[in-house]
């Protein structure tokens, strides 16, 4: 077992903290700022509660399913309840982890396994938390807890294994996903769409004033998402190296591009750029650059950001209204669509030397063939996510009921689900 690198380990510890910051309080604020006053606390505590629940699910089973060697389809149970995690610790020091150790595709790292699994845990946390935007304001809290456990194990962990395990079958297709465009964003976005459709529209939609209660929260939340995304993307380099540097740079540029893109479209279409629009665009840019961050150059990232900002404006502002589903906070409109845009453009803008590794010295370069592979990976993710999410939703709805009663919805989730209120 080789030694860890303290610099790389330092950066991955920080990246873990940054990705956690994205969910709590980042996403909690981003979402809570967009709901009505009566749902502010419940919206925040959904992200927080998911953070608690998934942490436990992850150490018990989720990590084993996703990242132990196993087969191309799913991990084995060798890290059930993290057994064996401390085997190599000697006087507080740990050796470096190798993903898929012993297989032909093993990926040696320079950080301990404890750090790798903690970092991955934060990804497992944010994915179902993103999803909650789709059914904001009408979900029963108890049902959400059960749904989250099942969804994490049956949807998130398998897809993570397929895409990120060196043995995973989607990875084998040749598609690339730097930091989770498919696993996190498309996955949660598409699952959100399914949930939004199955749970139905909010009571009073199109009639009542459902304007956001406190956009200041949404802006703070978006800002923390942005900052935390450095951990998400530059952290996915798994070390403090040149790829991390480029990933941070492309992340910044795409976020900026997304903000400017949405702003310009809105200015042109509605005569005014809104604050919510600018921050939504930045988030869309961040989503879209996620699969691309370590593989593209800053110029490509700028294009990805601008395009994502523009397209997500349409999906959130136009498409949703046309199709009539109520994806309340645009989990699909921003994360699903933005993720798809990014995954595909990664296949266009990928720059070989950046993505090259010892085992693949040419790296991945943009072009038709890579684009096709990206389409495949996106398709696979969507199919699995749609089917399993629908199934889980159906089961939990039968067992507990996913949606609160109409009167509870009108009184607000804060009061009815938690017995609390903003003063």
């Amino acid at each position, binding site marked *: 077992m080789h030694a860890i690198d303290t610099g790389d380990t330092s950066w991955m510890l920080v990246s873990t903290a940054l990705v956690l910051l994205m969910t709590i309080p980042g996403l909690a604020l981003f979402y809570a700022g*967009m709901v009505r006053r009566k749902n502010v606390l419940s919206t925040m505590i959904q992200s927080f509660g998911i953070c608690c629940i998934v942490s436990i699910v992850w150490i018990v089973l989720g990590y084993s399913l996703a990242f132990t060697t196993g087969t191309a389809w799913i991990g084995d149970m060798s890290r059930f309840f993290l057994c064996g995690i401390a085997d190599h610790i000697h006087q507080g020091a740990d050796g470096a982890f190798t993903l898929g150790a012993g297989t032909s595709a093993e990926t040696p790292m320079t950080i301990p396994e404890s750090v790798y699994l903690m970092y991955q845990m934060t990804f497992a946390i944010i994915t179902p938390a993103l999803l909650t935007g789709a059914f904001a304001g009408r979900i029963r809290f108890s049902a959400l807890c059960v749904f989250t456990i099942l969804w994490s194990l049956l949807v998130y962990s398998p897809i993570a294994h397929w895409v990120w395990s060196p043995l995973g079958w989607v990875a084998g297709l040749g598609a690339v996903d730097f930091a989770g465009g498919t696993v996190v964003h498309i996955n949660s976005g598409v699952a959100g769409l399914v949930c939004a459709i199955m749970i139905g529209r909010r009571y009073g939609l199109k009639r009542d*004033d*459902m*304007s*956001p209660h406190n956009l200041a929260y949404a802006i703070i939340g978006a800002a923390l998402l942005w900052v935390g995304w450095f951990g998400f993307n530059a952290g996915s380099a798994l070390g403090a190296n040149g790829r991390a540097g480029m990933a941070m740079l492309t992340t910044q540029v795409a976020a900026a591009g997304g903000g400017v893109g949405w702003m310009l479209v809105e200015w042109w279409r*509605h005569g005014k750029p*809104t604050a*919510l*629009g600018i921050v*939504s665009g930045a988030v869309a840019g961040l989503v879209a650059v996620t699969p691309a961050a370590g593989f593209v150059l800053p110029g490509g990232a700028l294009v990805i950001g601008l395009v994502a900002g523009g397209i997500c*404006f349409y999906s*959130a*502002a*136009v498409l*949703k*209204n046309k199709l009539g589903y109520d994806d309340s906070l*645009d989990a699909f*409109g921003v994360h699903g669509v933005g993720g798809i845009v990014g995954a595909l453009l990664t296949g266009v803008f990928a720059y070989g030397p950046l993505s090259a590794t010892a085992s693949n010295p040419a790296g991945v370069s943009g072009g038709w063939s890579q684009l096709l592979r990206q389409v495949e990976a996106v398709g696979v993710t969507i199919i699995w996510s749609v089917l399993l999410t629908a199934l889980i939703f159906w089961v939990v709805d039968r067992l507990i009921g996913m949606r609160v009663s109409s009167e509870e919805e009108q009184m607000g989730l804060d009061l009815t689900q938690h017995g609390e209120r903003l003063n």
Partner: protein
Amino acid sequence: MGEGPQGMKLVTAIIKPFKLDDVREALAELGVHGLTVTEVRGFGRQKGQTEIYRGAEYTINFIAKIKIETVVPDERVPDIIHAITEAARTGRIGDGKIMVANVEQMVRIRTGETGEGAL
């Protein structure tokens, strides 16, 4: 009951929020010593601007207004209406309303004084 020698009226004005300071000053000049202000939302001929959040249009039916209430002696009512009208007018729709109603009794809590002495 009714209007005795010390008849008092409650004058209520609904105005645009940014006119509050102007109206307060105008009333103070008239010697009105007290008033009570409430933040309200009004629905009337003036329509709220349509706000668009991520493409969803919300017609804001209710527009922020300020309600001013002041109890004054009968005979001051015309002056006060005049002063408020002048100070609160912008000439555009939504400038608001003034209403007058009868007050039968008034007490100053601190001293127990009643009637005009309580103003």
